[in-house]
């Protein structure tokens, strides 16, 4: 939630790059979610867990929200954060990985 403004800017800035933001959403009320998603301009895809401690969150042992995993173009985990990451740090590492993904094409 706190990250939404920065996430919107990331998605906008990297819309023509090999980058995707994928949410794993843990709200419980879908109607309410859809309303809020519209209001906050959440345009990217989110998986629907239905609750905190939904199937994927349980399997991955998520202990805090947000938890973020950054995965490179080969599918390798490059970093993860418990709690919101530092934004400049996040931008820097994403930019580096996007550059690598393009170089590999």
């Amino acid at each position, binding site marked *: *939630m*706190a*990250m939404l403004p920065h*996430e919107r800017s*990331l998605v906008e800035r990297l819309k023509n790059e*090999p*980058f*995707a*933001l*994928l*949410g*794993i*959403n*843990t*709200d419980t009320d*879908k109607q*309410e*979610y*859809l309303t*809020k*998603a519209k209001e*906050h301009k959440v345009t990217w*895809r*989110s*998986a*629907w867990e239905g*609750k*905190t*401690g939904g199937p*994927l*969150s*349980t*399997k*991955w*042992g*998520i*202990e*805090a*929200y*947000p938890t*973020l*995993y*950054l*995965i*490179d*173009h*080969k*599918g*390798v*985990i490059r*970093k*993860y954060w*418990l*709690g*919101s*990451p*530092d934004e400049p*740090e996040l931008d820097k590492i994403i930019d580096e*990985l996007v550059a690598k*993904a393009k170089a590999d094409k």
Partner: protein
Amino acid sequence: MMPESRPQDKMLSMVPSFLMLLLAGAPASAAPVHSAQPAAAAAAQDKPSPKDPLQAELESLMTEYRAAMKAWSKARQEDPKAPRPVPQFWDRYSALAEKGSPDSLLWMAQNAAYQFEGRKKEITAKKLECYEKLITGHPRFAFADELPRMITNEKKYFERGDMDRLLSLLLLKSESRDVQAACLESLTRILADTSATEADKKRAEEYKLRLEKEFEGTLIVDRMRAAEFKKNNLQVGMVAPDFTHRDVEGVEFKLSDYRGKVVLLDFWGFW
């Protein structure tokens, strides 16, 4: 830098506020850590009704205690040796415990070290007595699923045998699967340490099997599985394990559909 505690973040330490109150000011090592999952269903069983006079008495005592703790943490900034406000509350908690208040027993177990400052034997005896009374007299206590972890945290005062005895007793007395699973998990850990005898090791193995066979779907088994999964699959440098999920529109997708792109995976919610 990791700004972990932005106001909007949901750092899930979902400990019931009631318990936090009991444990207010407890050493960090004793602070309950909860998983992201909702508290065990068992926790709802024994929720005392607010109209109960014993409960009302407890609540007013806790309010006083909390105020004293607040004053103490302030005083401690000036004088690091300021004594904890435990002795002046001890007899009242003790009286409530006599009347059948499980929360008071837990408070005593957790605070015995400040009541009997430095007298290890007495502290251990009192802690054992309180935990035992709590387990035998109130096996459906709302926070019974926290007890195994609290008991195994008492390393300073309890021998392995003490922990074994209390955990085995709770395992026997409790009817909650979550509590039983937590007991088995703790027993597995304490019985398998380096000083374990062959018999202990055998018991540890049996308990582990029981956990896996009979306690699928309990919080503790979920947590054990997740810890294992994280260690083997979710470390930096590992290929992220693929998953299939449905998005909010109901459309199925896979993580591997995004191969070739950098993916930022965000576990989040508006709540």
